[in-house]
């Protein structure tokens, strides 16, 4: 099940994938570069874990929960521009081993998130 942060990241609690919402990517515009962390890195909830760059600006992606990076999505590195708001929701940045699922309790479910971004 996906849970959303107020800063537009999502985490899939089943497989530990983290991505950002299609709303967020629509705001960013054309993505030209994605900076991903090293596998094995330990992260705390709220840490910066990746950066998405559009022509205009860099936007930080924060960890929705704590854990360890176990995989990064290398395909984003080589062809970020192929991603667009329609398929972004299924494109993950990193996979983490979640330390404590209860950290996700305060996050929003899909309906709550959609209500927030309107």
């Amino acid at each position, binding site marked *: 099940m996906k849970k959303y942060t107020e800063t537009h990241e999502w985490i899939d609690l089943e497989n530990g994938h983290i991505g950002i919402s299609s709303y967020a990517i629509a705001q960013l515009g*054309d993505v030209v570069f994605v900076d991903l962390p090293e596998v094995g890195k330990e992260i705390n909830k709220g840490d910066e874990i990746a950066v998405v760059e559009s022509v205009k600006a860099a936007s930080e992606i924060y960890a929705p929960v704590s854990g360890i990076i176990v995989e990064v999505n290398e395909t984003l590195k080589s062809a970020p521009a192929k991603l667009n708001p329609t398929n972004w929701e299924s494109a993950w940045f990193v996979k983490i081993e979640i330390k404590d699922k209860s950290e996700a309790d305060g996050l929003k479910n899909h309906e709550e998130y959609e209500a927030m971004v309107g």
Partner: protein
Amino acid sequence: MAKTILYDIHTKLNAKIASFAGYDMPINYEKGIIFEHNFTRNNAGLFDVSHMGQVVINGSDAFMKIAQVDLKALKIGKQCYGFFTNENGGVIDDFMIAKVAEEKFFLVVNAGCKDKDFAHMEKHKVDFDIIENMGLIALQGPLARKVLDEVFKVGSDMKFLDFKQVEIMGKKCTISCSGYTGEDGYEISIPFDIIHEVVFKLIAHENVELCGLGARDSLRLEAGLCLYGHELDNETTPIEAGLLWAVPKSRRENGGFIGDEVITNQIKNGVKKKLKAILPSIPAREGVEIYDNNGNLIGKITSGTYSPCLKAPIACGYINSDYNEETVKLKVRDKMIDGKITTLPFVKHNYFRG
């Protein structure tokens, strides 16, 4: 937040709006920055730049005491680039100025600097009138010339930096053959009462797309053009910014403007820092520190973006002028990445010089 006369068009076309220099301005329209950027390089992009300050200057003497331009030598019907300098040779603002008639000039200044420019000119007894009833649009790109001729039958006789008064839809407008993209094109000052219709007629042409400030920024950086507040500011001199070409010979020799001694001295004896073009391995934005290959801090990035034409990150920044190596390190977030020094512009200019 202020709005330009064309604001309703931006919102109707679902532009992404953000505040810039006190104005709600379009960053991009629905097709996005990369589309608009490439369209301008291949066709013609139309930009609303009505936020910029448009001013009539009466008389050249007072103005030439606060800027490096040679308004006496400038021919009627020509435009040139210039800047207001401070006592340290730093730049208060940069601008374009055109000679309308003997001792009468048309000045365009940056939106974010308008108020301080006006105060500065007033303080130094420049006689000027702010134009309050005209908007400003820029039509830029290799097909701008063809489009403007087809739609309004003007501009086809103009070369780079020509300036003239024309009639569009029966109203007096002024037009310069210049812009901020490195492409052939025009900036047209148009009365409020017809500017909407002018824009509608232009965007109805198949070779025209409206473009926002996002593409304007990536286009100007590819073209290696300085942006005030980034490459130019109160602490940076035109010589450091590589703008010696904009200081006419007469003004290099005789000075006579604020900060002239600093500038003359730098022309003779060199500068401590110099604006350089850099190709970073990943995007490096404004504020990123530049290091030599031994880890010593040697400068800072002033503008950085992704170049849709080169399909790679580009940046420029100030580097200590004694640095001669071809590569640098850039501190992007917590990493040191590679940068290669190159020359401006990143994409060659395509001005029409006849």
